[in-house]
């Protein structure tokens, strides 16, 4: 198990486009200690820097100020689900999984594909799968990495509700069995309240932490139970001031050049 500490993380992006002159600050002075084995969800309006925060933790962003420190003196093994599936289009689903695994992981990879309800699709090429199936394959890949730290960027978005429900309980089961540290970005407050051991909400504009709650409740949870319902209400109150959610972008804030490639991955 590995924990991490974020110290004074600030991320500014240079102005983009002809109309804009000021740089954009998405994260401001974020300091957080995430305990080993915690399941943290990060919520907040679009464009507030949730994806950027994951990229900073993953070591993909090099333009931030501040520091990321690990509780042990080593780099953790990271499993990540990006907003896009990011599968190699020329490799079959199973080969995409095995690419990131140590040799001899085939049986486990097949089990994980079964877990995300992709049994039988292992030899398909990504383009032969729907977007939702590709996302599930990406989730299986992240789990196959046997991560100390699992970074999930809206992993269950665009799945139908009953399947998302099942995968949520699988995810909690996996977390309880293996105890990886999880940081998950989500737009879904119910998901945050039902799954995680701690919810962090980022505030629009300021880019600071607006709310930080530990949820010491046992699983499975129901949002109709009083304690859960209270937290959910608190989150909904908080979100009243947020700008209306945009369903289109979020990629743009972190990796402007990436979105075209992402669309290609989704459409071919």
């Amino acid at each position: 198990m590995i924990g991490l500490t974020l110290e004074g993380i600030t991320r500014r992006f240079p102005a983009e486009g002809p109309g804009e002159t000021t740089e954009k600050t998405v994260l401001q002075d974020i300091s957080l200690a995430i305990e080993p084995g915690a399941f943290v969800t990060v919520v907040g309006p679009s464009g507030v820097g949730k994806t950027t925060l994951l990229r900073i933790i993953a070591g993909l962003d090099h333009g931030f100020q501040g520091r990321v420190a690990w509780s042990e003196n080593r780099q953790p093994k990271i499993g990540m689900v990006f907003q896009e599936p990011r599968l190699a289009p020329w490799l079959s689903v199973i080969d995409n999984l095995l690419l990131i695994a140590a040799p001899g992981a085939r049986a486990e990879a097949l089990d994980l594909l079964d877990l995300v309800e992709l049994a039988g699709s292992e030899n398909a090429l990504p383009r032969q799968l729907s977007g939702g199936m590709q996302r599930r394959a990406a989730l299986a890949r992240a789990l196959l990495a046997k991560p100390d730290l699992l970074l999930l960027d809206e992993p269950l978005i665009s799945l139908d509700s009953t399947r998302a429900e099942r995968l949520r309980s699988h995810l909690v089961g996996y977390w309880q069995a293996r105890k990886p540290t999880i940081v998950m970005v989500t737009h879904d407050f119910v998901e945050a309240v039902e799954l995680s051991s701690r919810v962090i909400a980022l505030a629009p504009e300021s880019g600071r932490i607006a709310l930080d709650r530990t949820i010491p409740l046992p699983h499975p949870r129901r949002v109709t139970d009083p304690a859960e319902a209270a937290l959910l209400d608190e989150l909904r109150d908080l979100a009243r001031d947020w700008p209306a959610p945009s369903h289109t972008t979020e990629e743009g804030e972190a990796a402007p050049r990436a979105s075209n490639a992402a669309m290609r991955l989704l459409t071919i």
Partner: protein
Amino acid sequence: MKAAAALEVPRRRPDWLRFKLPSFIALLVLWQVSAMLIADPALFPTPLATLETGYLHLMTGELLFSLAVTLARVAVAFFFAMALGSAIGIALGRSQPMDAIFGGWLSIALNMPALVTIVLCYVWFGLSETAAIVAVTINKAPTVAAIMREGARALDRQLLEATQVFGVSRWKVLRHVVLPQLAPSFIASARAGLALTWKIVLVVELLGRPNGIGFQIRTFFNYFDIAGILAYSLAFIAIVLAIENFIVQPVERRTGRWRTA
């Protein structure tokens, strides 16, 4: 995948029979008719006369020897040009500073007339085999580099990021992520390059080698032996088309399978 293959196979043969073969025969007929109209066998021999000349040279062994010599030069120069051009192209495509500094050099190299490099190589290195190979390589490598640079620029950054997060080894990334993306560029440059290489090899041979198709063509030119020139050219075209059809295209189909499968 199976359905697509099933659709493709029955279509290919009729296509070939219906269009390619008749149009090829039409070209031969056109050649025969115009040769008969011009009625000067020395200036413009008929296809049959050309075939006969080709057969004579084939029997003496001269044609095959020249073909072999020229093909060997093409192969060696092609190998060096692909290796050198790919290395330069990938370096420029992956590194912006490198491209900023050396991109202009590549533009100059791309626009250098083939004849200039050939003449300079012969002057500097003498009328040697090395000079011939170097000249062809220098002519061909920039084209390869330009195509490979585009391929290397277009590498999927998102996928590379994913492999980085998961800590995939450099070798696996190269083998399974980078090379599959570069394969189409590599084959495109090989195709563009093959045609260019053999044309330049002929010029190199014509200017300063004692054997090969280019040398033979110069000899025929000295004796105004048009039938010889045509026979040797056709033999060479046949070989190049065979390489294109039986080596380059199958490889191309194989590497591009994931796009259409």
